């Protein structure tokens, strides 16, 4: 059943186009793939000459809410997970994205844009794991 009250097809499509533009721009201007986990992970493996652009990209991400707020009201998120769950989930996301060489942006957006079979396998795998996890939490445990 489709959740029509929360479904935002046009805003999500438009936001997706902006994300695609950011990824294309980054590839063409900087020659880099806009994979967030790789960009952030690289900051934790310090290498000379490889840090400034990573920091700059992350600062851009962090500044996005402030810039967005100039034009409109920032949409308040609903974060259902409690602190212990957030700790566990963050840890899994950190280890998993680095071990699997990518996340929703690197494999999902950039990898699929390159029609990379490797990224397709990664995307199908983390989507399947996400579906199974939410099914377990929402429909089996509770």
């Amino acid at each position, binding site marked *: 059943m489709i959740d029509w009250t929360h479904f935002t097809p046009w805003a999500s499509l438009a936001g*997706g186009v902006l994300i695609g533009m950011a990824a294309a721009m980054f590839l063409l201007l900087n020659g880099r793939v806009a994979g967030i986990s790789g960009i952030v992970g690289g900051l934790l493996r310090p290498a000379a000459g490889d840090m*400034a652009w990573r920091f700059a990209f992350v600062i851009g991400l962090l500044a996005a809410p402030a810039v967005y707020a100039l034009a409109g009201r920032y949409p308040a998120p609903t974060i259902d997970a409690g602190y212990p769950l957030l700790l*566990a989930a963050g840890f899994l996301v950190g280890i998993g994205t680095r071990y699997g060489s990518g996340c929703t942006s690197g494999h999902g957006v950039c990898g699929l844009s390159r029609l990379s079979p490797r990224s397709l396998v990664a995307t199908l795998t983390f989507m399947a*794991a996400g579906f199974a996890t939410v099914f377990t939490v929402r429909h089996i445990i509770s």
Partner: protein
Amino acid sequence: MHSIGAFAAGLLFGIGLIVSGMTDPSKVVGFLDLAGNWDPSLAFVMVGAILVGIAGHVVARRRTASFLGGAIHLPTARQIDRRLVLGSLAFGVGWGLAGFCPGPALVSFGAGYDKAAVFTLAMLTGMALFEAFEASFGRAAGRPGRGR
């Protein structure tokens, strides 16, 4: 110049995430909840991003250097191995538990939400542990860092 390009790309990426609704974990979990009230929004984000992304790659493939100068670094790994699948599985479980992936977590952290800060800190800890492990045992010790 490279830092300005990176800042602009990060900013636009973050604004795209906000506009798309993906900085709200309840929307992400709403997409992952196939058996409940399903919110297909995330699929629309992916379609919009990938269509534009394909155009970007078509242009990038014809060029030998980026517009700001320097090589275009595209991932060279092709192998579908245990690391790729196990890593993606762990990521997917964490993603489903909290509804955050790295980009939206950083943007929400930037918006000042405590819960996003806790998630981000845990994520950085996981990434740092991975680096420490790789430096000691991993085959990536001799592999150049790849951006993803």
